[in-house]
């Protein structure tokens, strides 16, 4: 005891050896990653690259602000929002029926104990369908639909509808199953139909959470619809892609600013709505 009191506290970090070891280990792991990603930061500063980048950045100023261009940006911004909204509406059309089929709380045969084999397999199949729909990225759906229906907003709307249909369906089913099933099961036991049990038992319980998740996804869909423009689905993304290919920095800057403002606005609206829902 006295010994411990008299020895001075260590002057340097007592764990330095371990820290040094882990830093070394991290570098060893990072090396193959850097190799695979051709991570060569110095090429950013090669004279030729620097010149191209500098020219592009210099062309950012002043941002494009002619009336005609701004009108076009406003039109394309609305298109972006419209693609997201239409896509999400169709996603709901896909997701809601599939959710009703997939939710195990609404199973009549599961009331006494185990679910019967047929309904169980059906629910599992629907669940797999939802997982497949959501795990194909919307950009890939868009690439496929651009081949089939041609360039334009139809491909974007369909891509958002399929991916978000899968996401919404899966999460809706999870939300509905996470609540207290008592009221729903009582309705079912007393002879209510599944739809009645859903509308009067399950939905009132979970309405706020379902709405809040849907609003959040709408915000995500707006971001997606900009990205989808890059493969030719129309909207702000497509114009941005065109301007970038022409190295027109001023137009890019204006559109980036509009886009950041749009995302911030959607963020604000969605956060406000979700707070109001509690």
């Amino acid at each position: 005891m006295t010994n411990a009191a008299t020895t001075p506290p260590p002057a340097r970090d007592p764990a330095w050896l371990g820290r040094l070891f882990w830093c070394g280990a991290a570098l060893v792991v990072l090396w193959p990653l850097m190799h695979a990603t051709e991570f060569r930061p110095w090429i950013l500063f090669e004279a030729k690259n620097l010149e191209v980048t500098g020219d592009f950045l210099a062309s950012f100023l002043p941002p494009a602000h002619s009336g005609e261009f701004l009108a076009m940006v406003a039109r394309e911004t609305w298109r972006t929002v419209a693609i997201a909204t239409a896509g999400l509406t169709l996603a709901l059309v896909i997701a809601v029926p599939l959710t009703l089929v997939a939710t195990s709380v609404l199973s009549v045969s599961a009331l006494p104990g185990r679910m019967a084999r047929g309904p169980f397999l059906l629910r599992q199949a629907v669940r797999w369908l939802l997982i497949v729909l959501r795990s194909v990225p919307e950009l890939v759906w868009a690439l496929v639909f651009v081949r089939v229906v041609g360039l334009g907003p139809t491909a974007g709307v369909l891509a958002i509808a399929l991916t978000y249909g899968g996401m919404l369906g899966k999460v809706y089913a999870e939300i509905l199953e996470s609540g207290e099933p008592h009221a729903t099961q009582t309705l079912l036991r007393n002879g209510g139909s599944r739809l009645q049990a859903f509308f009067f038992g399950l939905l009132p319980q979970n309405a706020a959470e379902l709405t809040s998740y849907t609003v959040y996804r709408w915000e995500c869909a707006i971001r997606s619809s900009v990205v989808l423009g890059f493969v030719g689905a129309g909207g702000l993304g497509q114009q941005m892609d065109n301007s970038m290919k022409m190295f027109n920095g001023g137009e890019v800057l204006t559109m980036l600013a509009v886009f950041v403002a749009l995302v911030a606005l959607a963020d604000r609206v969605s956060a406000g709505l979700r707070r109001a829902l509690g």
Partner: protein
Amino acid sequence: MHAEPTPPPGRPGQAAANLPYRLPPRLFDARCRACWFSAAVLALVVASFATLDLQWAQFFSLEAARSMGRFLGEFFPPDLQPEFLRRVWIGTWETLAMSALGTALAAVGGLALALPASRLHEADPARGRALTRLVLNALRSVPELVWAALLLIAAGLGPFAGTLALAFHTAGVLGRLFAEAIENAPPGPGAALRAQGVGKLRVFLYATLPQVLPQLMSYTLYRWENNIRAAAVLGVVGAGGLGQLLAFHMGLFHMGKTATILGAMLALVALVDALSHVARRRLTR
């Protein structure tokens, strides 16, 4: 939203046996906020469908169905030649490496930005806080794909641009989360060190960081999971990985090869999902 029913008129002290029969509320009421909200949503949806020139007729026509069927039919059989499989494997590894390195860079960059973006203690003036938060928001609200398209000009085609794009976007996301975590850390240990006259950097390294590190790690892992999905498609604009292979072969209508690449993409996403599901269950148990 709706006014509570007023008690039925009657002599005081004598409640009515039954509440008077009430009609359901009117469908639209000018004082009902939910009604206005629903009306606005409906208007937005109708306006969206009305202004977009959607070609449903073309999509649901017999010809479109046939071309869709032909298109899907060409996916089979997937191209499984060993030489091509090797390229897909390289693409998959590139995608994984891009996501891992991008997330690691973002964690470092996010931490560097989170420090000026947070109020470290009560008396901290935190002068750069508002400005840094603005930068973080701008980084965050530009999607990875747009960053990639912008960075292609500086970094050239290939996975390096994709890695940087992931790092930029994710640094914005993680920086904000890290700043919240740092501000919410218990202030006790930091205050104790500061009272001893320990410098800022060492207070952070030995008091704040150890407390928030588990949270920072879990945020970073969560973003990594997202970034693997993002990295798979970044290549569509030419930023390397599976997406670049996909865009290339789809552009040339090599449908068998496209099918293989799509399969690899789905397998990668499913694998990551399963792993993170297991890991999270382990952590929460």
